[in-house]
């Protein structure tokens, strides 16, 4: 896992990832809100396709390929379960035993799972863009003490993992195994190992604390080194995101981003104004794709010129 975090650090200064973390973060907040608010199968379907495109442009779809089983399972679960337990509506498709299967329920299930699907694909690309470091940077703006604490804890995780592995190995020779024996004993041994880690690491941590204090921790209000600065392109992107996002939300307010189901089922086909809001929605969601595409084109022409 930390390997994948590393990789993204290396590729951090290109395309969408080169924008100020705040801009990227805002994009994701907006996108998540839109995906949750737009309860329309067409919107969500188009959204899912674009988001997959975003993932592909960022890491050739590696992250979602790792996840696809889970994605499939969750979306299928709700597509199937919703018609089975929800019988409100007027259009009966067929009967399953005693129970009527409603068209409304099926559509609702589709919307629900599409929206989950979008959310999860969105988070897959979020993890590629907002790396742990960027997240902590954002975090430290508002909550500096928490951010410092999180950073410290992050630094301990690989260390403790390695210690734990070592403890496990040494103690295995003394019969403390998590792999063999009855469940109760294995669980007990597992905690035993963590207990050694606890006693050992607590003592060692005092030294870390001393090293912090020796470098002036707590003498003053900390300043913060800002590795990122807002450039003009970041302001432009910010404007783009805010304007399109607000229009989209307005569309939701008007009900154009939502498929009405109860009491009357609206047609799935888009009409009039809905087309406009779909385009705005698409533009918003595909922002990273536009940036990555522009970059690719630029390279293409630059190479040609040489």
């Amino acid at each position, binding site marked *: 896992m930390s390997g994948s975090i590393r990789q993204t650090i290396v590729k951090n200064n290109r395309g969408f990832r080169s924008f100020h973390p705040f801009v990227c973060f805002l994009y994701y907040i907006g996108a998540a809100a839109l995906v949750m608010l737009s309860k329309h199968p067409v919107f969500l379907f188009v959204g899912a396709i674009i988001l997959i495109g975003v993932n592909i442009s960022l890491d050739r779809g590696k992250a979602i390929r790792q996840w696809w089983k889970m994605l499939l399972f969750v979306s299928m679960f709700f597509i199937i379960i919703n018609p089975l337990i929800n019988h409100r509506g007027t259009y009966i498709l067929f009967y399953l035993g005693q129970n009527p299967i409603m068209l409304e329920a099926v559509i609702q299930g589709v919307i629900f799972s599409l929206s989950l699907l979008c959310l999860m694909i969105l988070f897959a690309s979020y993890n590629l863009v*907002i790396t742990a470091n960027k997240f902590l940077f954002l975090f430290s703006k508002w909550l500096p*003490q928490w951010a410092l604490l999180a950073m410290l804890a992050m630094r301990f995780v690989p260390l403790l993992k390695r210690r734990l592995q070592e403890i496990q190995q040494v103690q295995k020779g003394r019969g403390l195994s998590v792999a063999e024996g009855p469940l109760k004993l294995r669980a007990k041994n597992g905690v035993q190992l963590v*207990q050694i880690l*606890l006693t050992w690491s607590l003592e060692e*941590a005092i030294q870390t*604390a001393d090293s912090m204090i020796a470098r002036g921790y707590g003498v003053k209000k900390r300043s913060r080194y800002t590795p990122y600065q807002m450039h003009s392109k970041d302001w432009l992107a910010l404007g783009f995101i805010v304007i399109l996002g607000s229009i989209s939300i307005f569309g939701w307010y008007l009900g154009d981003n939502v498929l009405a189901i109860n009491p009357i089922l609206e047609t799935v086909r888009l009409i009039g104004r809905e087309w406009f809001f779909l385009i705005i929605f698409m533009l918003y969601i595909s922002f990273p794709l536009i940036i990555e595409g522009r970059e690719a084109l630029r390279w293409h022409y630059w190479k040609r010129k040489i």
Partner: protein
Amino acid sequence: MARHQVILFSSALMLSIMLIFVTLFIQHHFMLASFLFVMLTFLPFVIRFERRKVSGRELVLLAVLSAIAAVSRVPFASIPSVQPTTFVIIITGLALGAESGFVVGALAALVSNLFLGQGPWTPWQMYSWGMIGLAAGLLRHTKFMKWSIGRYVFGFISGILFGWVMNIWFFVGNIDQITISHILASFGASLYFDLAHALSNVFFLAVFGKAWIKILLRFKKKYGLLDR
């Protein structure tokens, strides 16, 4: 332990419960309500800790405990759905108090998600574990928690509730289309895991609870930490 912390906690809780009721009636704002609920019960503690001046040693202690809570599931990779993270958080609350329990719980969730990739569940996990640590700390001087069976009950309930809260993220965006049967279905689907979680909490508390509290208290005393 400050009395006003207890007051703060209970008033936030009451307020939120009221909100929940109100919004249950006006179904359309359920999403907002759940959001508010989380904010009102979570943010005050986040901000409270942010404002506190914490010494270097305390900071490192909290960071190590969070990292241990996050890493503690590594040796359990071969035992599905059993892991002592919740146990570590409960013990922290019991030994070092509500605020430490809260910080360690929330941070353990955040850190392990920063490593494994964040998802829509991250805030919920932070919330649940943070609250478990907080509750353990708030209740630690009560008769109930001094009684060993009481602690087991606490461990059991937190295991189950944790699972429930974690299920919520599925529904947040679609809350107005959700029926009770939906929720029951998904709770039912995760019941096996929640039960395993709850029972393993009880088991760990029974076997290791005392020893771990002793370890933490010995350490706290040795270095004079978090004494207030």
